[in-house]
């Protein structure tokens, strides 16, 4: 099953490689991993999307907690949460296609953030499925480039993760 893990870790050189190394050394899957410092510059917040059986998830959580740089680990699947990902898509946009692309972007609440004679670059945020659906709605021959950040997750309401 797909799980979203949210981690607080010391904002120190090497902390990211400890987490990444753990996943590769123990053969756990990573679908995506995002990390950046928080409002407290000594801490980083990481979101890892992974999948595994209940047993594997239990081991992943325990092994992450064991890393000395890791302060907290939450499995967001254990409660109500939000998941957002940012995607940038560069499309070939010429002639009649320009209007068509714009319309599709509007439907998905995407924004065109860069324009040339031949291209549009669209910014879109949302849960993974929404981004996938948008890509499916586009003409694949017209897609020049895509880049996705991987998911960031946060608990809903008063489910708060801090030290």
């Amino acid at each position, binding site marked *: 099953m797909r799980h979203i893990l949210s981690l607080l870790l010391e904002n120190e050189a*090497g902390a990211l490689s400890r987490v990444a190394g753990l996943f590769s050394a123990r053969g756990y899957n990573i679908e995506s991993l995002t990390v950046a410092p928080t409002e407290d510059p000594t801490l980083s917040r990481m979101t890892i999307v992974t999948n595994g059986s209940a047993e594997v998830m239990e081991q992943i959580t325990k092994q992450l907690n064991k890393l000395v*740089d890791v302060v907290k680990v939450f499995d967001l699947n254990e409660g109500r949460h939000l998941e957002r990902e940012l995607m940038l898509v560069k499309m070939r946009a010429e002639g009649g296609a320009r209007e068509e692309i714009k319309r599709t972007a509007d439907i998905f609440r995407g924004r065109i953030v860069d324009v040339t004679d031949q291209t549009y670059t669209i910014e879109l945020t949302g849960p993974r499925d929404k981004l996938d659906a948008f890509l499916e709605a586009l003409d694949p021959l017209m897609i020049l480039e895509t880049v996705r950040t991987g998911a960031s997750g946060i608990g809903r309401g008063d489910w708060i993760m801090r*030290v």
Partner: protein
Amino acid sequence: MQLSGAEITIRCLEEEGVEYIFGYPGGAVLFIYDALFQQDRVKHILVRHEQAALHAADAYARATGRPGVALVTSGPGVTNAVTGIATAYMDSIPMVVISGQVPTAAIGLDAFQEVDTVGITRPCVKHNFLVKRVEDLAETMKKAFYVATTGRPGPVLVDIPKDVSQQVTEFLYPAQIEMRSYNPVVKGHPGLIRQAVQMLLEARRPMVYAGGGVVLGEASEFLTRLVRELGVPCTNTLMGLGSYPATDPQFVGMLGMHGTYEANLAMHHCDVLLAVGARFDDRVIGNTRHFFVEGRRIIHIDIDPSSISKRVRVDVPIVGDVREVLQEMQRLVAETPQRLDPVALKQWWHQIGEWRGRECMHYERSDTLIKPQFVVETLYQVTQGDAIITSDVGQHQMWAAQYYKFDKPRRWLNSGGLGTMGFGLPAAMGAQLAFPDQVVACITGEASIQMCIQELSTCKQYHLPVKIVNLNNRYLGMVRQWQQILHGNRYSESYMDALPDFVKLAESYGHVGIRIENPADVEGALREAFALKERVVFLDFMTDPTENVFPMVKAGQGLTEMLLGAEDL
């Protein structure tokens, strides 16, 4: 006080009460060696290969319970040390490793003797640090000792660039340290402990399976008391040997791949299993599917949550320090008059007695060939069971574990998790330094001993009168055994050709060498060796090259599927 990074490093060791540091110098650690030279509280032992520095420091820790400390230079110094670091990591041994690094400005430029030490060692340390500013050094050293020795112990590496060891700053050693990201659990969950005690008291076929965690957690005394109070059988893993007295009638021997018939069968047929500081290793329980028994309940005490329910699902998981948890269990047992059903317990012991009747440790004696088991048994008698025994890896290691009866913890020092050939001799040095008046013997094989043989020179320099018991079967015996049993007798590259004359070799290092070729001479040679209290003696026993270790559970099979002897092949 203003001190250089090098001086701070040594002062930190002093503050931690470090007696010995095992190491080897080189460019990146020259300032640290200079600081060592100018003081006389921390004593440095110059090994002949960095791997040996690590093993010696590791064994010092295994023998004393205090962290071992090693010092190596950058580049090849570190890469040579990696085997030793990984060895300590796999067996959860507290150690602080200090490595030199190229100057901060040179890092990343493929500088001379530069390797990514933090990267290379990351998967085999509990934690590591690269110290980029001399101002952070003292606190980092404090953290290193704290992390290495608390919770589940393990090696911690501190990488110190050369310029950091040279720069000067105010030295202040923190008395205490707190880390928001590291808070090992100590006390177990009271409700679960209560449940565990109740489950044990209601058991009809109880079994206690105790491992290295009991030794690491200094809890042998509490384990022994609880097991005796309840009158239940107890087995030990290879790493747990000595945590329960081997000569006690309630001890059923080691379990696992080369464990006793009775221990392995009792593991399988018990109805309540108490696992203490043991991690259900594949060499211990074999195939997990076969290990599963419907209805058997498992209580697991371990300080590391990730050891629990890793390979085997347990019913009562207790995260905590063994010492604390066993003490609490004992208190609860003392509070209640309830004891195990005496009739059921008697029947269970009767069953175990039957299994013991198979005499799985029996071996064919011989007047002409030296049986390795016989050498270990005789060693046990000659040393009155009171020696510190180190070992290498192979058949000799298993015979040492099976035939030397350890009644106390920290007397049996071996590499279980990584299985590192070359561990034995440097380990003996570390133990002998820690306990100069103790008899220390290294049980080894002609192949393993050659992996760190250069340390005979270190033994000479520091007058470390260890005794080497070489069970020389002219084979990579453990490999040959697997080839015989699992690969159709095809002995691919397992014959040790062109062996040196170990007697002359020992003599050339300034030691005594004795070759023993007849069973009748075994005891005499051992007595002669141990009479030479001040000397290193290399005893080269020419043993039966065809002997195999039994019982044996083939890799991937279940614990009850044991081969008991040559007749089962």
